[in-house]
C-alpha cells in the first residue's frame, strides 16, 4: 500500500468508491420506493442485503484484520434483536412507531450488544484462535438458550418476541443509512494508525506486543465495535419481523455470515460487501426453488464453497499456482498485452492489506 493513502486532506476516490456506490444504489432504490416503482418483495430483499452487509463487514473486521475467529456473531445479533426489539415494543405506545423509537431501539440494542461483546471479550481475548472461537460459539448458544428460557413475559419464550414493524417503503433506506455509518466507522478505523496496529496483531502478535502495541486494548476495541454493529443489524432485523425468534440466531447463521466473509476474501471489506449481497440474493431466490428437505442443499453448497475457497487460498502446495493465476495477475497480464508499451505496472499490493 502506498504511503500517501492515509493523508487526511487528500480525497482519494478509490477509497471512497464503495460508500459512493452503496449510497447511489440506496438513493436510486429509495426514489423508486417513494414513487412506488418497487415491488414489495424487492424491498424485503434490500432490507436483508443491508443487514447482511452490516453483519459481514463487522465480522470481516474481526476475522480479516484482527485475525481471530468469532463464531458467535449471530449471538450478538440476537442480543441486539431482543433488547432493541423489546425497547421498541415498550416505547411504541409512548412515542408511536416512528423514527425516534427506531433510533432509540438501535442505540439500546447496539450498545447492549457492544457491552456483551466487551464482557465476553475480556476473558476471551486472553485466548487465541481455537479457544476464542469456541468461547464465542458457546456465547451464541448461551444467548439463545437464555432468551428462550427467561419468563415468557419478558422475551416471549419459545414463541418469540413480538416487535413493532416499520413501513416497508422506508425501512430499507434507514438500514442502508446504518450500513454507510458502519462502513465509515470500520473503514476509517482500519485505515487509521489504529487499523495498522490491528493488522500488525494479526500478522504477528508477539512482534506487535514488542513494538509497544496494546494488544488487549485493540482486540477489545475491535470486538466491541464488531458486536455493536452486529447488535444494530439485530435491531434492524427485529423491525423486519413481526416476531423475533431465537431459533434464527443459531450456529448455522453465524456460519452463513462467515461464509460471506470467506467468499468475499478474508481481509477485504469490499469483498464482504459483494459476497453478502450475492449470498443474500441467492438465498432469497433459492428459497422459492429449494423447499422442504431440499433447503439443506444450500448449506451443503456453503460448506463445499467454504472448504474449497479456504484450501485454494491457503494451501502451501498451491502457492505457486495462486501467484500465477490470481485475478490481479491475470488482469495485469491482459493489460500488458493490450498496450505493450504501457508504463511499468504499479507494484503489486498484498491482497490482505486491501481494505
Amino acid at each position: 500500500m502506498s504511503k500517501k493513502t492515509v493523508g487526511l486532506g487528500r480525497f482519494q476516490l478509490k477509497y471512497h468508491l464503495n460508500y459512493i456506490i452503496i449510497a447511489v444504489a440506496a438513493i436510486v432504490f429509495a426514489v423508486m420506493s417513494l414513487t412506488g416503482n418497487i415491488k414489495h418483495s424487492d424491498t424485503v430483499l434490500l432490507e436483508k442485503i443491508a443487514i447482511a452487509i452490516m453483519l459481514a463487514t463487522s465480522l470481516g473486521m474481526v476475522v480479516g484484520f484482527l485475525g481471530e475467529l468469532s463464531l458467535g456473531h449471530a449471538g450478538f445479533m440476537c442480543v441486539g434483536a431482543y433488547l432493541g426489539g423489546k425497547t421498541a415494543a415498550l416505547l411504541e405506545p409512548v412515542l408511536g412507531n416512528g423514527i425516534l423509537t427506531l433510533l432509540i431501539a438501535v442505540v439500546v440494542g447496539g450498545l447492549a450488544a457492544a457491552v456483551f461483546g466487551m464482557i465476553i471479550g475480556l476473558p476471551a481475548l486472553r485466548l487465541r484462535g481455537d479457544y476464542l472461537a469456541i468461547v464465542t460459539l458457546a456465547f451464541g448458544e448461551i444467548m439463545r438458550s437464555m432468551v428462550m428460557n427467561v419468563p415468557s413475559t419478558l422475551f416471549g419464550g419459545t414463541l418469540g418476541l413480538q416487535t413493532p414493524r416499520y413501513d416497508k417503503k422506508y425501512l430499507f433506506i434507514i438500514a442502508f443509512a446504518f450500513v454507510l455509518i458502519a462502513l465509515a466507522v470500520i473503514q476509517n478505523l482500519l485505515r487509521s494508525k489504529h487499523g495498522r496496529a490491528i493488522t500488525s496483531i494479526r500478522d504477528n502478535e508477539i512482534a506487535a506486543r514488542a513494538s509497544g502495541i496494546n494488544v488487549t486494548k485493540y482486540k477489545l476495541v475491535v470486538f466491541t465495535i464488531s458486536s455493536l454493529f452486529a447488535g444494530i443489524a439485530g435491531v434492524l432485523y427485529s423491525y423486519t419481523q413481526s416476531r423475533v425468534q431465537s431459533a434464527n440466531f443459531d450456529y448455522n447463521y453465524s456460519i452463513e455470515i462467515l461464509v460471506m466473509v470467506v467468499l468475499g476474501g478474508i481481509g477485504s471489506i469490499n469483498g464482504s460487501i459483494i459476497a453478502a449481497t450475492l449470498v443474500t440474493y441467492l438465498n432469497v431466490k433459492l428459497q422459492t426453488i429449494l423447499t422442504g428437505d431440499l433447503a439443506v442443499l444450500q448449506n451443503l453448497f456453503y460448506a463445499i464453497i467454504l472448504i474449497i475457497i479456504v484450501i485454494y487460498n491457503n494451501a502451501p502446495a498451491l502457492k505457486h499456482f495462486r501467484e500465477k493465476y490470481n485475478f490481479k495477475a491475470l488482469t495485469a497480464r491482459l493489460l500488458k498485452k493490450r498496450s505493450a508499451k504501457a508504463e511499468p505496472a504499479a507494484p503489486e499490493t498484498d491482497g490482505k492489506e486491501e481494505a
Partner: protein
Amino acid sequence: MDFLVTLINGLSSGGTYAIIALGYTMVYGIAKMLNFAHGDIIMVGGYAMYVTLMAMGHPVIAVCAAAVFCMILGIVIEKVAYKPLRGASPLAVLITAIGVSFLLQSLAQIIFGSSPKMPLKLQISGAVTIGAMRIDYSTILTLAVTVIIMVALSVFVKYSKTGRAMVAVSEDRDAALLMGINTNRIITITFAIGSVLAAVAGYLMLCKAPSLSNTLGSMPGIKAFTAAVIGGIGSIPGAMVGGLLLGVVECISYSIPALAPFTDAVEFSILIIVLLVKPSGILGKMRREKV
C-alpha cells in the same frame, strides 16, 4: 442418596464427554488443530449404526461397522481437507474444519431427511436397584466403557511404540521427524483413533436415548471440546478429568430446578472461569510462545 444417584449419572454422562474429548485433545495435541468436525463424526457413526442395524439387525455388528466406517471417514477427512493445509495459518485450518462439520451435517440431512430416526434396537433399557438407588444399565455400561477406554488408551500411549511416537510428535513435531518418526502416519493414526472413539461415544449416547438426527453430535461435540479445554487441551488425563467434571456439573445443575433451564450456560461459564484462573486448563502445561 439422591445426590449419589446424580453423581453416578453425572460421571456416566461425563464419561461420554470424556471419550469425545479424548478425540479432540489427541488431535489437538498432535495436529495442533481443533477438529470441529469431530462432533459430527459421532453423528455419522450413529447413522452408520442405524443403516447396518436395518441391514444386519444386530447391535454388536452395527457398532463395529460404525467404528470402521468412522475410522475411514476420519482418515479421509484428514487427507482431503486438513493435510493440504498443513503449515497454513491456524485460522484457515479452523475455517476448513467448520466447513467439514457443516458438510457432514448437511449431507446427513440430505440423505436421511430432517426427521429423527429411532434405532430402538440400540437402546438398553432396564435398571438395577441397590437399596433406594436406581441406576440404569446404560449408565453402568457407559461407566465401564469409559474406564476401559481410559485404561487402554493410557497403556497404549505409554507403552506402545506408536503411542510413544504420538507423545513425541505432540511435544515437537520437527524434532520427532528428525528422530525418524513418520509424522504424517502418526497424524493419520490419531485421526483414526479419535474417530473410532467418536463412534463409541455415539453408541453410548444412542443406548441411552435412541433418537438420531443430523445435529446429534454438535452440542455434545462443543461440550466435549469445552471439557478438553477445561482439563487442559492436548493432555489425555486432562480430557478425562475435564469430561467427568463437566458431566457431574451438568447433572447437578439439571437436578436443581432453578438452574435446570440454564444448564448449558452454567457449563460454559465453568469454561470461562477455568480459562480465567488457569488458561492452560486444569492439567495442561503452560507453553511459552516462542518467536
